[in-house]
């Protein structure tokens, strides 16, 4: 369908459609099905697949109108949209038919099965194996750092299918049914006490042949698509504020859905160091009078401001048509340094009280939670060291390190 979209036409069409269809007392599933059929749930998607082929630049207009009405959108929590975008880009029509609608309606929950105990920074070193036997794929191995695996219906699985070619060429991407006997999900407890992630063990788990995504050996390429969308979505993970225009039963249903999947992220602000608390803490503890504390506090506030401005410069460059590339790595590295500096400042302002946690600790344990969560920020989503490699090689153009893993994967040294 070729439509000549303009901002006013989009606005008018969405408005008319919402006026005719939005009902805050509908059942969430019924509303979402109506929405998915209309194409306004994922307007930038192709009209063949629940979209209206809207130019991406006009999507914010649609969101504005939804917000004006207080209308609930498609399900967005967790990694479901990464799954959807990956299937849209690489899946078969059969897979799209089977999964896309139920991803958007929120009926089915997804998880991402990439990292392994033996392959963290070196994601392409996965050793979970999938072998074709008797008309199915048989999966054995272990995945780790899997968010929401215990709720998930389906998983995006990266597994090794060929050990005789170089590592990047021997992986295949699958959709695996998580609700089967060969899949064992165990919580993984972190050093800060939370268990926000899982370990997933596969023992002769099975995958039907038609659940392979893209060709055998193409897994790395497909995984890159997923990771690209993951980076884009990184800032939106914790859900979006919805403008409630009126009361309605649909909002309670939606809140329940989002509570389930945002629960693992409650400590994420602490992971980033809670710069917002620093000045108040310094005042409350009177450490603001200490010269050394003042210096570190000031340093923290400056770093934080400068990081904001640098992100704004990167956005402006993007708007001028320069592509968003490794600037993401710079931002990630900046956040990591800011969190470490905040750790230092919170320790200085709390002094010996920093020894205490829980109800005995400063701010009912919030300071302790910061001190115990910050170490994650320089590891999760790519370690600082990997970010520095990316910056040095892609921004500064420095030579890559010679590789020791270029031969057949079978012969490569591994854990």
């Amino acid at each position, binding site marked *: 369908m070729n439509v000549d979209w303009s901002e006013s036409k989009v606005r008018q069409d969405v408005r008319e459609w919402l006026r005719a269809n939005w009902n805050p007392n509908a059942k969430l599933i019924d509303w979402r099905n109506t929405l998915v059929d209309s194409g306004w749930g994922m307007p930038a998607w192709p009209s063949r697949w629940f979209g209206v082929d809207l130019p991406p630049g006009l999507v914010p207009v649609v969101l504005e109108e939804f917000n004006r009405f207080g209308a609930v959108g498609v399900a967005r929590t967790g990694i479901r949209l990464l799954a959807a975008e990956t299937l849209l880009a690489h899946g078969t029509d059969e897979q799209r038919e089977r999964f896309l609608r139920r991803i958007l309606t929120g009926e089915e929950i997804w998880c991402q099965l990439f990292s392994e105990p033996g392959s963290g920074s070196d994601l392409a070193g996965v050793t979970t194996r999938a072998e074709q036997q008797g008309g199915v794929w048989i999966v054995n191995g272990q995945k780790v750092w899997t968010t929401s695996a215990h709720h998930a219906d389906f998983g995006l699985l990266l597994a090794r299918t060929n050990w005789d070619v170089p590592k990047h060429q021997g992986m295949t991407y699958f959709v695996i049914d998580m609700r089967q006997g060969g899949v064992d999900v165990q919580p993984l407890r972190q050093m800060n006490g939370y268990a926000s992630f899982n370990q997933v063990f596969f023992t002769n788990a099975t995958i039907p042949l038609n659940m392979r995504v893209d060709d055998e050996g193409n897994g790395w390429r497909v995984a890159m698509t997923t990771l690209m969308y993951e980076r884009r979505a990184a800032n939106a993970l914790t859900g979006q504020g919805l403008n409630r225009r009126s009361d309605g039963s649909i909002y309670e249903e939606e809140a329940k859905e989002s509570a389930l999947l945002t629960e693992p992220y409650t400590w994420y602000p602490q992971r980033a160091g809670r710069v917002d608390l620093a*000045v108040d803490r*310094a*005042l409350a503890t009177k450490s*603001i009078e200490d010269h050394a504390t*003042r*210096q570190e*506090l*000031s*340093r923290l*506030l*400056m*770093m934080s*401001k*400068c*990081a904001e*401005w*640098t992100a*704004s*410069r990167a*956005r*402006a*460059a993007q*708007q*001028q048509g320069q592509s968003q590339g490794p600037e993401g790595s*710079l931002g990630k*590295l*900046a956040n990591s*340094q800011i969190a470490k500096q905040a750790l230092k400042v919170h320790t200085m302002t709390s002094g010996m009280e920093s020894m205490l946690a829980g109800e005995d600790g400063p701010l009912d344990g919030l300071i302790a939670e910061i001190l115990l969560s910050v170490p994650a920020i320089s590891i999760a989503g790519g370690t600082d*060291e990997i*970010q*520095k*490699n990316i*910056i*040095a*090689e892609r*921004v*500064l*153009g*420095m*030579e*890559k*390190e*010679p590789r020791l893993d270029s031969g057949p994967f079978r012969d490569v040294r591994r854990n």
Partner: protein
Amino acid sequence: MEFAFTDEQNQLRETVAQFLESRCPIAETRNQIRSTNGHDQDVWRSLVRDLGLGGIHAPVEQGGAGLSYVETCIVLEEMGRALYSGPFLSSNVLSVNALMCCEGANTATFLTDVVSGDSKATLAFIERNAKWNLQEFECSANNGSLSGEKTFVFDGPSADLLIIAARSNISDRYGLYAVEANSAGIDYVALDSIDLTRRLSTIRFDSVKAIELGAIDESKYQAFLDLAVVALANEMIGGAQRMLDSAVEYASTRVQFGRTIGSLQAIKHKCAELLLDVELAKSACYRAAEAMDHEDLNRSQLASIAKAMASDVFVRAALDCIQVHGGIGFTWENDTHLWYRRAKSSEVYLGDSSFHRERYLQELGV
């Protein structure tokens, strides 16, 4: 508020960069170190007259380009990158700033002369023991006669016009005064400076004939200091960027153990960390430059962030650059030390990073 340079601003940067590259490459700057004035008079004149940079943010009525402080800072950043040794900062930025904040009857003429390049000016305001607080000044003017001592004066002996901040004959009042450089009663003492590309001197005044340009109070003086600090900070990040570029370039060509040293993570990570800090400091400097034209923003806060960030990153960039070069980086022949000297000198001028971190908190009201 998103920050991006306009096409015109990018073009200005390009023009200045090309000019400096062709007219004062570092080999030429090295020659100038041994010259009397420390810079090539023709190059400076060409910057002012051919490129029209004599008063970038000065009003058009006085011959200026009537642009904003952002353009001035763009030019300074390129000069910092090239380690330009001429009196652009002292005459065409700091002196222009001082003249622009005066309402005296003669000011317009002085400004016109400085902007056109007919006159080279410099500022004398800091006093012995690096005192730059207004209340600490001892130098004073009485009925058109100025006496006292000023130090840390940039490009002193080559200036035609000295602009001096001093006590006026009314107690607790201060003013800016203009003195012709060849007036009787002026004594120049050249100082041996760590930065070989910026001349420093002490100037003694003994009943020197001075023209009052206008009164200054604390808030006017702070505004002037903010402008000076932001100008310097922008010059410094140009230097920091040059040090990063130089380190990366050397690391990408120097081979040890059968590979470029840039392929080693120890070197790579050092450069990546430096790039981050240079970018953070640039953001602070650009934001501060922009704020100088907007009275509503807290300019002192932004100026202090810019100077603190620039001071730390320039010194670190120069140190890292020396380190990446290894032994050759510590030789006189290698150019890196010339920027390191500038970095160390600019680091402390009008307050080091600790000073500005403290000032920032005070400006925030905590």
